[in-house]
């Protein structure tokens, strides 16, 4: 039974981390370090694939297994074990993590070539895979939280990998700290959610909690608080409003890190968590509304910021935030399978785009400003072609992957009655197509705008082969979810049905027949995308003075978007500075130094004073001691007499 090997799949990356981490420095051959790292993930992928095959061969209600490894904590009423739930949802996530992860490991062998911290990079990557697998395979909240924290830690380690390199106003270390701290705020929400779950349901096990939950009625207040708290954690990890500010700064890390962690896997942890707790969310329609609204707003806001950014990785970062918004929109309207479908396709094309940008940055010797690029397609042909595939995919042009998943989300939003959110999603799709093609045109087409002295060259095979594989997946990956209206069986939705069965019951959603309006919406979204592409090509290739004129006319709006709506500055002023000043003035000087230190010093001084006065007794003359001795004897005998 393939699913029993799940333990190996999870712990092999941990072993890879230990090997590379402890003796990697002494391994002189880069390829060996890279092979150790990649092999650990590859084996995980093979195991995941064999589990998938086994699942496809068994009937739908026998596809879920729980593999119990060992007992972790037993304390009073709480009993938590390390056990993995192998079902359709976790296998899907596992395939994404190990598959895309493996490709990125291979890519990194080429990208990080020559870096003195090569072995460190691979050990951190393996540690990340280990914790991410724990997150998605866990069968209880506490183990998932272990993975949750672990990926946050790896994110910190990897963002700050070049720890003393300058980055914007500080160093990469500051960016890493920002990521970790903002994540922490979200984790606080997750913790509160866990505490509430334990006190309400008495257990942290998924099966127990969800079984209990399905007996509650829709609208139970405690479930609303639980889901809100958990969602706060998701906004932190998956970079939604209000905790999205760390993701653009996370671009300080090496590009493979951005591809793996901040595009394909870690940021999808929030989506996975909400999907896993689907039955809880189905019981709390208020929270679902919040989720959908936050998702749609984030999608739109992030897309608007991405319109005017000039750093190639920043654009992709905001694009990621925007696409994550779409996924949350899907979850919020009750289309859990659609959200996960978008996770799958997004993993393909976003990783592809990031890796492609890495090849560009590599070729342009660490230049990241797209205003200084241009006309690279003749120098980097493979990169250009794969990047083009990725851009078309994300813009949502059929028959590439992005179209099917994004369209499914928009259709489901409309069908469940959220018309305003549907419209926001549509506008966002148009903006997405626009800024992605702006990026493509400014980088690869047009005239040379390079600084003198740059000689761009194509990337080595270890980098281009993963690009090609991801491009193929972006092209055909959508076919697992062809909706019924286009003649397909929507395989992925049916695959995931058993997972969301309980949730669907609660939401009283019936299956729907193909309706004519679905075709209209489909045509609308494609039309909007094509319009965006057209506009971008026109403005940035032919009439390049139009964007400049527009930005001059709407200078205020342009500045607002360029500075990301000043969100970082607002947080700084409202939250961070008061906290820092308050800590310093009040907590440090006032309480720590004034009260606690004073108390300890006073205590010591008191002891000193008493000792000084008592020291007179020790004269050193033996006879005085004998005096006291005698006095004691008299006292004792006297007491004995009078007893």
């Amino acid at each position, binding site marked *: 039974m393939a699913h029993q090997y799940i333990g190996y799949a999870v712990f092999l990356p941990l072993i890879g981390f230990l090997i590379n981490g402890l003796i990697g420095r002494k391994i002189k051959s880069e390829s060996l370090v890279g092979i150790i790292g990649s092999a650990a993930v590859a084996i995980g992928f093979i195991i995941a694939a064999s589990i998938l095959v086994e699942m496809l061969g068994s009937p739908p209600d026998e596809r879920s297994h729980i593999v119990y490894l060992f007992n972790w904590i037993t304390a009073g009423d709480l009993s938590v074990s390390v056990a993995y739930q192998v079902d359709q949802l976790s296998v899907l996530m596992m395939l994404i993590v190990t598959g895309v992860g493996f490709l990125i490991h291979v890519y990194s062998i080429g990208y990080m070539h020559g870096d003195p911290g090569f072995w460190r990079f691979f050990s951190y990557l393996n540690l990340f895979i280990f914790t991410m697998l724990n997150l998605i395979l866990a069968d209880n909240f506490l183990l998932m939280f272990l993975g949750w924290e672990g990926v946050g830690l790896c994110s910190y380690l990897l963002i700050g990998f070049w720890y003393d390199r300058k980055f914007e106003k500080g160093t990469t270390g500051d960016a890493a700290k920002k990521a970790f701290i903002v994540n922490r705020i979200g984790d606080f929400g997750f913790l509160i959610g866990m505490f509430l779950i334990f006190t309400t349901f008495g257990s942290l096990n998924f099966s127990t909690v969800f079984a209990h939950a399905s007996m509650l009625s829709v609208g139970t207040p405690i479930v609303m608080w639980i889901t809100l708290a958990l969602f706060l954690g998701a906004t932190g990890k998956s970079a939604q409003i209000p905790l999205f500010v760390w993701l653009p700064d996370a671009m300080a890390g090496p590009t493979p890190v951005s591809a793996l962690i901040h595009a394909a896997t870690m940021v999808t942890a929030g989506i996975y968590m909400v999907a896993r707790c689907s039955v809880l969310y189905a019981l709390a329609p208020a929270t679902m509304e919040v989720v959908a609204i936050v998702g749609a707003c984030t999608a739109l806001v992030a897309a608007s910021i991405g319109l005017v950014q000039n750093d190639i990785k920043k654009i992709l970062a905001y694009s990621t935030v925007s696409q994550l918004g779409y996924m949350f929109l899907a979850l919020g309207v009750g289309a859990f399978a659609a959200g996960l479908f978008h996770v799958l396709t997004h993993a393909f094309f976003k990783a592809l785009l990031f890796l492609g940008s890495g090849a560009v940055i590599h070729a342009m010797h660490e230049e990241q400003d797209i205003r200084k690029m241009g006309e690279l397609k003749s120098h980097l042909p493979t990169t250009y072609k794969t990047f083009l595939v990725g851009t078309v995919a994300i813009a949502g042009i059929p028959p590439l992957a992005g179209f099917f998943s994004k369209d499914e989300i928009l259709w489901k939003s409309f069908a469940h009655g959220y018309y305003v959110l549907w419209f926001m999603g549509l506008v966002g799709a148009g903006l997405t197509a626009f800024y992605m093609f702006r990026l493509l045109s400014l980088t690869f087409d047009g005239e040379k705008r390079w600084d003198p002295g740059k000689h761009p060259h194509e990337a080595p095979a270890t980098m281009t082969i993963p690009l090609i594989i991801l491009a193929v997946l972006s092209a055909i990956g959508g076919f697992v979810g062809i909706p019924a209206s286009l003649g397909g069986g929507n395989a992925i939705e049916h695959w995931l049905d058993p997972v969301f069965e309980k949730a669907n019951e609660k939401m009283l959603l019936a299956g729907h027949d193909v309706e004519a309006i679905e075709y209209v919406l489909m045509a609308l979204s494609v039309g909007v995308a094509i319009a965006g592409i057209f506009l971008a090509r026109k403005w940035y290739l032919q009439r390049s003075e139009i964007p400049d004129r527009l930005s001059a006319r709407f200078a205020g709006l342009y500045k607002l978007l360029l500075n990301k709506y000043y969100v970082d500055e607002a947080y700084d002023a409202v939250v961070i500075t008061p906290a820092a000043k308050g800590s310093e003035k009040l907590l440090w000087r006032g309480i720590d130094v004034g009260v606690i230190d004073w108390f300890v010093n006073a205590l010591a001084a008191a002891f000193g004073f008493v000792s000084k006065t008592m*020291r007179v007794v020790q004269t*050193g*003359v*033996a*006879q005085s001691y*004998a005096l006291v001795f*005698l006095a004691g004897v008299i006292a004792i005998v006297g007491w004995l007499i009078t007893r």
Partner: protein
Amino acid sequence: MQLSLSAYLGLSAILFTIGVAGVLLRRNAIVVFMCIELMLNSVNLSLIAFSSYRGDITGQVLVFFVMAVAAAEAAVGLAIVIALFRNKQTVNIDEVNILKW
């Protein structure tokens, strides 16, 4: 005339007290030492008195051993006094105040 046991014990107590007073009041180390011997003797007296009045030989055996120990102690104690004198040129106890922190 038979003396009562209390008489002997009383004498022993008086001797002991004299010895104690001597230990506390005198400043010459050797005289202090002699007073300690005086105290030991008073205890010997009371032990023998008990032994005689109870008909048990244990008391006298004990006194035997006490004498032996006292002899040994005398030797060692006086050796210490000699060593002390060599270091400090005095046996005045008041000036030997190094038994403190």
